């Protein structure tokens, strides 16, 4: 009876271990110009464009725009105004809702993914100052990763803002 109990615990632990994986992000940064701290304190955020093959009912572009705006406000990097000379454009290049149940069964199956690209433009010359690309993914994990599709854009934009902060401070971008 004791052996049976130990065996059950062993299986449960083995399954639980599959769940100890979280959200990962991969980012690339393309700097065209260094940031002039004294020149820009205001920014305008253009609505995100959905360039994915996602066919579901969700307004992916709207969700991403809201998330980017909230993250930017929370960061305090810029004041968001509609007449700013600095403009952010945002493209969603990949979005997979994924499934926590599938991830629980097999790591890599049912991955939740979002890839976003944020470009920083300077008006009126439409000069590109920097491009930030981030891919966030929850590729493995247990049922505790339910809802990853709700926070995946936040994870991607957090990464973008972290890189943007490095660019603004003049330090090498973090990898």
């Amino acid at each position: 009876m004791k052996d049976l109990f130990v065996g059950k615990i062993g299986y449960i632990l083995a399954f639980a271990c599959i769940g100890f994986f979280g959200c990962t992000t991969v980012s690339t940064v393309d700097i065209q110009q260094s940031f002039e701290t004294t020149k820009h304190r205001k920014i305008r955020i253009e609505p995100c464009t959905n360039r994915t093959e996602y066919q579901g009912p969700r307004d992916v572009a709207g969700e991403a725009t809201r998330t980017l705006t909230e993250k930017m406000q929370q960061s305090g990097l810029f004041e968001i105004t509609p007449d700013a000379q600095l403009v952010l454009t945002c493209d969603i290049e990949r979005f997979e809702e994924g499934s926590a149940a599938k991830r629980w069964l097999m790591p890599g199956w049912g991955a939740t993914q979002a890839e976003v690209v944020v470009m920083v433009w300077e008006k009126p010359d439409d000069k590109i100052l920097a491009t930030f690309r981030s891919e966030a993914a929850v590729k493995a994990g247990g049922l505790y990763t339910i809802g990853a599709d709700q926070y995946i854009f936040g994870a991607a934009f957090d990464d973008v803002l972290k890189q943007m902060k490095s660019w603004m401070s003049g330090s090498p971008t973090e990898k």
Partner: protein
Amino acid sequence: MEDLKWHIGWVACLAVLLCQPLLGCAPKATTGAFTNVSSMDQQLKRGVSTKMEVQRLLGAPNGFGSSVVPTDPRPREVWYYEDIEATDYKSEEGLLTMNMRQQILLIFFEKGVLDGYMWTSNSGKGEVRQ
């Protein structure tokens, strides 16, 4: 004996669950949705369209660069787009086969406005791939 049955039951359940994702889904590896080049001719105008207009239509490029063509020494900025997709890959008797689709697009700008583009794809015109 009871332990053995219990273990066999668990292993059988695990095997069924793990094999489930392998059934009925076509393997696919892709860099994402392909850049839509179908309306470039209608929506972009040479010598007129700005970088931002190009970005709105085609999205962010995968790379930036510049070029000087020997016969025309005026420098141009280049945006580079690349999309790759591999589908239906299978291995039979040591041979790996797959359908691969690749699309490369170069956009040229002169003094900040569109000057031309070069586009290539190995996709046949009448072929539908999703």
